[in-house]
């Protein structure tokens, strides 16, 4: 199962999981737009231009409003990419207290004997305590989805 911890300064979430699939397949399930849309059909939009400086965007319509929004929009820019080892992007959210505040999401994939160890680190959340709490519960769900999709392929 996925583990998830919040650092003592309430700034960073670290969530990890082991997946029985090769790193390149897992990597596609994280950032390749077509693969991600198949993985998570409830996403209205998932786009990511896979190069440093490339833009990404995710949009999802909710059955009932969350923090005052009925359509969640996340977006940002790719800061570092080294497939299938590393992907770092900035992360904004329209429901954050400060929608112009940038947090950072970092994906690290490490090959293991049985597949791939995945670690996702979401930092820069000290000024968004409500969102931080939600993300701490949200990331394990994302990792579970990534795992199930990669393993059934």
């Amino acid at each position, binding site marked *: 199962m996925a583990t998830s911890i919040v650092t003592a300064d309430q700034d*960073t979430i670290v969530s990890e999981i082991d997946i029985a699939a090769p790193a390149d397949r897992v990597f596609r399930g994280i950032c390749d737009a077509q693969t991600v849309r198949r993985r998570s059909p409830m996403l209205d939009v998932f786009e990511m231009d896979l190069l440093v400086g490339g833009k990404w965007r995710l949009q999802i319509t909710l059955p009932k409003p969350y923090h005052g929004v009925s359509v969640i929009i996340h977006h940002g820019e790719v*800061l570092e990419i080294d497939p299938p080892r590393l992907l770092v992007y*900035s992360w904004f959210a329209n429901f954050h207290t400060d929608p112009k505040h940038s947090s*950072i999401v970092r994906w690290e994939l490490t090959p293991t004997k049985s597949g791939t160890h995945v670690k996702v680190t979401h930092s820069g959340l000290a000024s968004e305590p409500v969102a931080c709490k939600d993300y701490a519960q949200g990331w394990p769900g994302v990792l579970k989805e990534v795992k199930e999709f990669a393993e059934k392929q």
Partner: protein
Amino acid sequence: MTTTSVTPDQDAVVSEIQISARPERVFKALTDARELQRWFGSAECPLKFWKFDARVGGRYSYETEKGSVVVNGVSEFKCHGEILEFDPPRLLVYTWTGNWHDDTSKLTVVRWELTPKSGGTHVRVTHSGLNAMPVAREDYSGGWAGVVEMLKKFVERERRVVSD
């Protein structure tokens, strides 16, 4: 000496210099707050402090006193970011957000690449994410050349002192 260029897409400033010191020495000057405090500043922008948590995910920040330089109406400069890549003595990458930027919500990225060359180190710094920030980009296209020259002066001067 120093070469500085702006990429054709107007997104990045690239500055390069050759330094007569080992990559390990140069890397330390880039990542040790006490050393940064000694060289990464100038009479025009006197340093208040440097903090640098040298690890992936670590934060850094620096601030200056009010100096004679003004960019986008700012003369007390504050900069902070997070370390994205830390691979001594070869690679250092961090985000870079300045209070003098045209858009302070945008993360820019600074990448330091050190390569052993001719018994010393070739230093290449690339500051990207500037295409929507013409004022800051203009300032950086002169600024990074000054920074790498201060770095060179600091590391090489110290080397002479040590060998004396």
